[in-house]
């Protein structure tokens, strides 16, 4: 089967973007990606739009059609489909777009993600984020997504697998990296004590263990068209993309403090790419909650993950750079966008254009995007040939 390349990437700034609407965010990112790829709308065979909860945040469904319309391409009748898989929507859309191009039916596709979260009060946003849980048997009874993460953390700690500090350090790393990224939601540097002592959201988790409520959009142009690949200034290859799922609710899982879907999707993506984890130079993972970051790494890297949190291994200039973008925690977490921003970051890094936070000469990135807490897992390997 043919190779699929990322020809162009684009992103908006992430944050509380009061003056920008969902449609403006989406078209900004899409336009940037198309210009970066050096192509025109006439070259695009399809648009895949990732969005988690537009129906609730801004009362808008049929979002891919809206994006295409406001990007000025409606007269081209380009098929435009929304992909939704909770907060894994971005990764899932990228995977669908990749498979469509890989199949040979489509040659060049735009895949974009957008979420406009700050048009509702934060309590309402918390409620909407909880939509990724089981509405009838979790949210109904008062569970928030953070409360589920907190119960995972409490049990994980009770089992003696890790201490508070082992996961409280992920927000510290993400903030450090975000401070070097122009599009970050947060640019402040924090310490581990700040995470542990901040105001509680769902104990033991504090505000600093949670990724923020952000607006933002990101987009990529992917293609298997040799002419376009040769014309692109710096194409980067998608080597594989694979997904796996688990029970929707934590109370139905075979294990409360592990994410078996993450192991399945990451092992599968590595195997399809013909790589082992040792050949992955950097990781972007779904640090929606600090504890979620730790458990993902336990699944992806194995038992060493906890030990690695005790050193400096995860900084951009270290042995296993992690969330060099600033992660969901500090670069921001506009739900449906996040998985695509991970791919934008990997592309920029692999091109060697990440400035201050540049990982030294990376060849392969593994990006992991997750819906809920271990429910939907999408792993994608992006690298240079």
């Amino acid at each position, binding site marked *: 089967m043919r190779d699929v390349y990322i020809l162009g990437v684009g992103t908006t700034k992430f944050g509380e973007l009061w003056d920008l609407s969902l449609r403006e965010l989406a078209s900004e990112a899409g336009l940037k990606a198309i210009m970066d790829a050096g192509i025109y709308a006439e070259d695009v065979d399809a648009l895949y739009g990732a969005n988690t909860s537009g129906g609730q945040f801004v009362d808008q469904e049929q979002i891919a059609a809206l994006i295409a319309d406001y990007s000025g391409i409606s007269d081209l009748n380009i098929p435009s489909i929304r992909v939704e898989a909770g907060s894994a929507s971005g990764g899932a859309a990228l995977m669908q777009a990749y498979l469509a191009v890989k199949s040979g039916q489509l040659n060049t596709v735009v895949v974009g993600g957008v979420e406009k979260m700050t048009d509702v009060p934060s*309590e*309402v946003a*918390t*409620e909407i984020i*909880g939509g990724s849980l*089981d509405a*009838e*048997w*979790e*949210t*109904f*009874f*008062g*569970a*928030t997504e*953070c*409360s*589920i993460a*907190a*119960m*995972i953390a*409490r*049990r994980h700690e*009770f089992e003696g697998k890790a201490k508070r500090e082992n996961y409280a350090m992920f927000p510290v790393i993400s903030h450090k990296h975000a401070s070097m990224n122009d599009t970050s939601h947060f640019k402040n540097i924090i310490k581990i004590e700040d995470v542990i002592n901040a*105001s*509680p*959201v*769902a*104990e*033991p*988790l504090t*505000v600093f263990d949670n990724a923020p409520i952000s607006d933002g959009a990101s987009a990529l142009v992917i293609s298997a068209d040799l002419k376009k690949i040769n014309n692109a200034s710096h194409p980067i290859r998608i080597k594989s993309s694979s997904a796996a799922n688990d*029970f929707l*609710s*934590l*109370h*139905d899982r075979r294990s*409360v403090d592990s994410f078996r879907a993450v192991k399945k999707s990451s092992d599968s993506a590595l195997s399809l790419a013909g790589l082992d984890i040792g050949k992955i130079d950097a990781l972007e993972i779904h640090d929606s909650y600090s504890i979620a970051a730790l458990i993902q790494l336990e699944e992806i890297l194995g038992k060493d993950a906890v030990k690695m949190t005790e050193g400096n291994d995860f900084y951009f200039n270290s042995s296993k750079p992690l969330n060099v973008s600033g992660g969901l925690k500090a670069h921001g977490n506009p739900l449906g966008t996040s998985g695509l921003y991970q791919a934008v970051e990997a592309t920029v890094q692999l091109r060697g254009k990440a400035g201050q936070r540049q990982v030294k000469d990376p060849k392969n990135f593994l990006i992991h995007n997750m819906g809920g807490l271990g429910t939907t897992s999408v792993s994608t390997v992006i690298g240079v040939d």
Partner: protein
Amino acid sequence: MSEVPRFWRESRHRYRLVGTRCTNCDTLYFPPRVICPTCRRESVGKMKEEEMSGAGEIYSFTVVHDGLEQFKMQIPYVMALVKMKDGPFVTAQIVDCSPEEVKIGTKVTATLRKVRSEGKEGIIQYGYKFTICP
């Protein structure tokens, strides 16, 4: 605002903790399921409703400080994953206690309470919460 059937159809499950047992592998599920995730097609037509005892113990828990609008008056409130004596795990609030009394392993029992309401004129929704066993 929701229509009545949305809550009415779950009332026996939420009022009396009625789950479903797969009579093929003899596993009890709660919340109720129409297909057993272990036996899959072998379980079709073999899922029978069964009421749980209401006894359980805390498997994990959290104290929620920043919660849903509907539960704002109760903050801080305790959410727990309760391991039921009958097998299944249940996500529920622990009430009538201070958060300090809640520990992993604490024995609890189900009680029927008001859970939510939809404004002044909407439906009052009831369901289970748990209290610490004396």
